[in-house]
């Protein structure tokens, strides 16, 4: 058996374990985002949305739908990796992998695969929920799938960094609560940045989540505040940066080796 074949087995083992971890507790991992997004649709889409009228040439509920799906993908891919990696550190079973002959990149890809799978699964579940409130239409399926994949990849990496540095369960929730949620809400889920004054439009462009939400909306509805190439470029640059950071931290043994 070649060394690469062994690495492939190790990758499959980590990825399978990560996928099993969240799918065994689907009531805690898949159902809550569906309920939450259902409530958003009822309150913001139907009740308040009717008063708002149209946005970017479509009903408000149609406008917010891609952003709500994207928000679920972001939070779930992030949460999956940060909680799983920190849990493994906390209970010391990260050592099972540390002592094994696995290169760090395989560990990273295994965890990220778990994050992507949960992000995409929740994305599908939330999209199905949205069918109770909007008609199903996808302008460009390849863009929808591609952007969902890249975004969940990016936030899985971000979750891993958080997991590496976390020293308590508080640290696992600080970033999602105080960084991720505000950035997501200000990332154009509920409004088009064209509604903002010029200054705040420019400020909004610093927010990377704006690019993901808009490219996702382009895939679903065919409208976006941002050019697709720019959005994909931004996401890829962030993926490369976070990937390099993750590898450096794992190689140094930050948070896991004394």
């Amino acid at each position, binding site marked *: *058996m070649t060394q690469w074949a062994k*690495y492939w087995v190790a990758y499959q*083992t980590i990825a399978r374990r990560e996928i099993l971890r969240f799918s065994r507790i689907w009531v805690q991992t898949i159902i809550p985002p569906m309920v939450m997004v259902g409530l958003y649709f009822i309150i913001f889409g139907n009740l308040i949305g009717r008063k708002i009228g149209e946005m970017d040439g479509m009903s408000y509920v149609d406008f917010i739908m891609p952003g709500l799906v994207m928000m679920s993908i972001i939070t779930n891919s992030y949460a999956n990796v940060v909680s799983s990696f920190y849990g493994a550190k906390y*209970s010391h079973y990260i050592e*099972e992998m540390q*002592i094994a002959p696995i290169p760090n990149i395989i560990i990273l890809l295994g965890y990220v695969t778990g994050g992507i799978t949960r992000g995409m699964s929740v994305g599908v579940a939330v999209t199905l929920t949205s069918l109770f409130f909007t008609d199903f239409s996808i302008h460009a399926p390849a863009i929808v799938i591609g952007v969902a994949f890249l975004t969940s990849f990016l936030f899985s990496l971000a979750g891993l960094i958080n997991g590496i540095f976390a020293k308590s369960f508080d640290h696992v929730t600080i970033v999602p609560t105080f960084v991720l949620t505000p950035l997501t809400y200000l990332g154009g889920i509920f409004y088009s940045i064209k509604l903002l004054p010029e200054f705040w439009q420019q400020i909004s462009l610093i927010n990377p989540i704006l690019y993901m939400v808009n490219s996702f909306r382009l895939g679903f509805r065919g409208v976006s505040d941002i050019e697709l190439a720019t959005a994909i470029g931004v996401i890829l640059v962030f993926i490369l940066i976070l990937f390099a950071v993750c590898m450096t931290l794992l190689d140094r*043994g930050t948070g896991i080796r*004394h």
Partner: protein
Amino acid sequence: MTTHMYALEISQLHKTYANGLQALKGIDLTVEQGDFFALLGPNGAGKSTCIGIISSLVNKTSGSVKVFGHSIDDELIKAKSKLGSVPQEFNFNTFEPVHEIVTNQGGFYGVPAKIARQQTNHFLKELGLWKHRNLQARELSGGMKRRLMIARALIHKPRLLILDEPTAGVDIELRRSMWQFMDQINQQGTTIILTTHYLEEAEQMCHNVAIIDEGAIIKNTSMKALLKGLHSETFILYLQDEISQPLALEGFVSPLVIDSQTIEVEVPETHSLNDLIQQLDKHHIIVSRMRNKVNRLEELFITITSKQEIMHDSVG
């Protein structure tokens, strides 16, 4: 020219933690292939740090470690593939089923799923965990959890197995069956490094021994040679009849009378047990049973480590 290949070769290993604690002060250690080696030392001596470095759980400050000739600096993957480890603390996901914990570990070592499952079944049966295979690990007793970690460490058939307190908290019956199992693994060619607080275990199982104290190796020899250094042994004798007055035995320090039917006698290396029995016979004393006061290795261990302490105190 060929050089001798050890199962483990440690040279000038230093470890200083971020808080300034110097856990290892340049230790040198070699373990022969096929050996059953005891690494002993009091709490905080540096045993776990040393094992942590060998297993890649702790970063070394300097020095070199080779596992079957593979340096952990240059050939880490090869070195790791030869190594299995049973740590002191439970380190598995307690919510995972027992069989999955073992099979997954095989997967981490690149063992294909089918073979890993076969191996898992084999070791779970060997270690008496077969009927518990579908339980979540948290549902196991302490002894079962220890055996689970041993099964997990063996799944990829390591050539060097490190057992860090493998029988801690395990009842005596189970401990003996684990000794038998470990002996069998060693007979099959696996080199074993054992750390334990049960010195009887080390004396019975291990051929060679190193004693580490305050981050330095203070003894590294064969078990036989080490035990030869014992200048006297203390025995507890249970007498058939009561004795009414203190005894004077020629050539022996006066026995300590524990109660009217129990005495404690120190037998120097210059005297045999036969000499003692003859002396007792002169006083018409019949010994119904006897035992070592403490295990022989334990007696030596205390002597050696306390000598170190005295030396440090006088230097300090």
